[in-house]
Every structure is written in structure tokens, then in C-alpha cells.
């Protein structure tokens, strides 16, 4: 165990959220919960990234008063990556939800296991 677990409290929280989301995406059988889990996982990662860009006592990288020194602003790279990531995450969310609607139309359930059983039964019957 390294020395920085509590000093990196933002990162610790982010990893916990990531873990919660990962578990929900992996283990939950309800489609909606899975989608929520996916969103939690992604926001957890984004929180981690955003925390990585932060530097104590510096301000947001919007050059207002003509101050151009790199020591006045935080690191802009993580913010850019997170912006890209958020778009990806909302796209995937929409896709997953559309799949959920379609699956519900077909199987009348949100439970992935039940869907699997029903589709296997259909296959066996046909």
C-alpha cells in the first residue's frame, strides 16, 4: 500500500464510483440498472481525470486578464479528454436505451437472464 491513498481523496472516490458502476454493469440483470451502471463507471473515470488535471491554487484555463504564464492555470488536457468522453458516454447510453426498448417490445421484461431463457425456448420450439 502506497502513501497517498487519503491524500488522493478525489481519486479514491472516483475509483470507488468506478467500481460501483463496473459491478452494476457486470452483475445487475436489469437493463436500466446496467445502463445506470455504465454511466456511473464513466463519470467515475471522468472524475478521476478531472482530478488529475487540478493543481492546487490555480484557476481554470481561460486566459482572461492577459496572464499567459503556465503556473497560473490548471492542466487543460484532462478537461479536453473528459469532454470527448462525455459525448461518447451519452451516445452509448442512447444506444443501450434504444436496445432496451426493442428488447422490451420483444420479451416484455427488463431482465437479461429471462430474455435469454425465453429466446432459447423460442429457438428450441421452432
Amino acid at each position, binding site marked *: 500500500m*502506497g502513501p*497517498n*491513498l487519503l*491524500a*488522493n*481523496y*478525489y481519486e*479514491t472516490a472516483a*475509483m470507488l464510483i*468506478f*467500481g460501483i458502476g*463496473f*459491478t452494476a454493469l*457486470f*452483475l*445487475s440483470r*436489469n437493463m436500466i*440498472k446496467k445502463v445506470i451502471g455504465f454511466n456511473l463507471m464513466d463519470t467515475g473515470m471522468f472524475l478521476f481525470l478531472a*482530478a*488529475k*488535471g*487540478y*493543481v*492546487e491554487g*490555480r484557476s*481554470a*484555463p*481561460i*486566459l482572461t486578464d492577459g496572464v*499567459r*504564464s*503556465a*503556473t497560473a*492555470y490548471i*492542466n*487543460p*488536457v*484532462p*478537461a*479536453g479528454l473528459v*469532454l*470527448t468522453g462525455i*459525448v*461518447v458516454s451519452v*451516445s*452509448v447510453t*442512447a*444506444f443501450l436505451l*434504444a436496445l432496451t*426498448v*426493442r428488447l422490451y417490445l420483444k420479451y*416484455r*421484461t*427488463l*431482465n437479461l437472464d*429471462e430474455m435469454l431463457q*425465453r429466446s*432459447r425456448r423460442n429457438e*428450441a*420450439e421452432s
Partner: protein
Amino acid sequence: MASYRLFRRFANWVEGEEVYPIPEIEKNGSSVREHPITEDMARVRSSDEGVGTLLRRWMDSPQGVAAFRRVYTVTAALLCAAIVTLLLVTVSYLPRFGAPDNPANNEVPRRYIEQGLSETGAINVVAGMILDYRAFDTLGESNVLFAATVAVLILLRDDGEGKKKKRAIPELKQEPERERPDPILRASAAVVGPFALLYGVYVILNGHLSAGGGFSGGAILGAALMLLSAAFGQEKLERVFTARRCKALTFLALMCYALLKSWSFYTGANHLPSGIPLGTPGSILSGGLILPLNICVGLVVGCTMYSFYACFRSGGMRDGT
């Protein structure tokens, strides 16, 4: 005691016992749940042979399903726990939060901040970074959104049959909106809607000067359109904003984006001057390509968000004809 209840709840959740929002579903589902496993299926398969088939047959039998589910759940839970522990231990070794001498604060952000203004013309360094220094990522990002639109359209767009506007899938049809939309919603949408649209446009146009940019502005535009559509009915909104126009707008904006960026990539790689004026920092018409790109992204995102809404609500947008 409370922790025990929490644990029970967790265990229930893991076992897949969920309460759906509407109790009727539970009722519907229960008829199937009574004979979940498939003896007839085992019979059907018994004519087959081979090791894998035996394995499958066992896995399809009741004991097999239960055992498999238990093993799977336990393994998966352990795996998740292991990953979280691993990541937490990793975090404890990482550089300290907020320290100015972290490895990430190297020459890369230094150049973005110190020379960003003269190289990209954007006051908002983040906008300059994602639309100029690392523009390929952002181009990919808007195509992720586009790919998702295509996927959602494949799944939910209801083309109807032939020329008649009859719906092919009756269940996809929304119930007819007999009840008038909520008066509170209409009144507040009438006040908030126009301002939200205006704010979206503002955020898009000021992307290179202040926080925000094409994506957040576009999302605001999309949200405003959703609000108007929810309050005044989709038909009314789509008299102006038809499916064909939405498609054309998306197409034009994405093509514009791709062409502008191709030009900039091409000149960059071949060490040619791009020939795009950067303008005076701080004014609206500055930042080289960033402003037009922001507008393109904003349009794409706005159209996409609204078409998601239309697809989820009623199987896609209508043609205005």
C-alpha cells in the same frame, strides 16, 4: 441490523430480483417464470451428441442453470472486488493530488497555455486544445455521436409500410395524446424555451472565449427543442423542423466539419500554411477554425439529441409534407 438489511438487499439485487416501476409487469412476467427451465428443450437436444452438447445440456438443466448462475455471480463479484481493490492500491501509489510538480504538468500543457493564444487564437485553452491541437479525437467524437444516431435509428425508427403513414409496429406507437399537455408545462416552456434556445446559441458562439462550446451548446439546444416539443406537441414543432431538414442539417454540418478539418490536417502534415486568419483574440470572429467548427458541432449535437428524443418518444420524426 441495518447493515444486515443492506446486505440482504444487495444479495437480492445480485440474484436479479427486481421490482419494476409498474407492478403489472411483474404480473406479466410471473407466468413465464413458473416454468423457466426447459425440459422439452433438453429433449429436443438429446438427439445431438458430443462433449460440448453434454456440457450445454447440463447447463440448460435446472441444476445446471442454478449452479452456473451461482458460480458466475460469485466469480463476477470476486472479480469486481479484485479490480476495485487493485485500483485503490494503485491510487495509493499515484502522484499526490493537486501537486504542481506532477508528471502530467509537463511541456505539453505548458505549450497549450503559453502559446495557445498565438497558435490557435482561442482564449479558452480547452477549446483550442480539442479543436486544434488534438482535433482528430474530437472529429472521432462527433462521429461516435453520429454512429449512435445511426444505431438508434436502425432500432427505433418506424418507417411504416409503403407510402401510407401506417405504423409497422403497433407497440412502438405512442398512445394518442388525448389529454392536453399540462398547462404548467406549457406556460413555463413558453417562457423558458426561447431563452434556452438563445442560451444554447450563445454558448456555441462563445465557445472559444468562455467555458462551453459546440457540444454543451448543442446539448442545450437539443434540450430546449425537447422542452418545446413536450409542451406544444411534436407535430407542431415538426412542422418547422422536419425529418428531412434535420437530416440535411446533420449531413451539412458533419461534412463541413470533415472538410474543414481535412484541410487543416492536410496542410499541417505537408507543412503548408493553412491560410486561415486567427483574428483578434477576444472578439467573436477569432480563433481561426474554432468558431465554425463549434457551430458545426453544435448543430450536429442539437439535431442528434432531438432525433434521439423523437425516436424514443414516437418512432422518429415525420416528414413535414
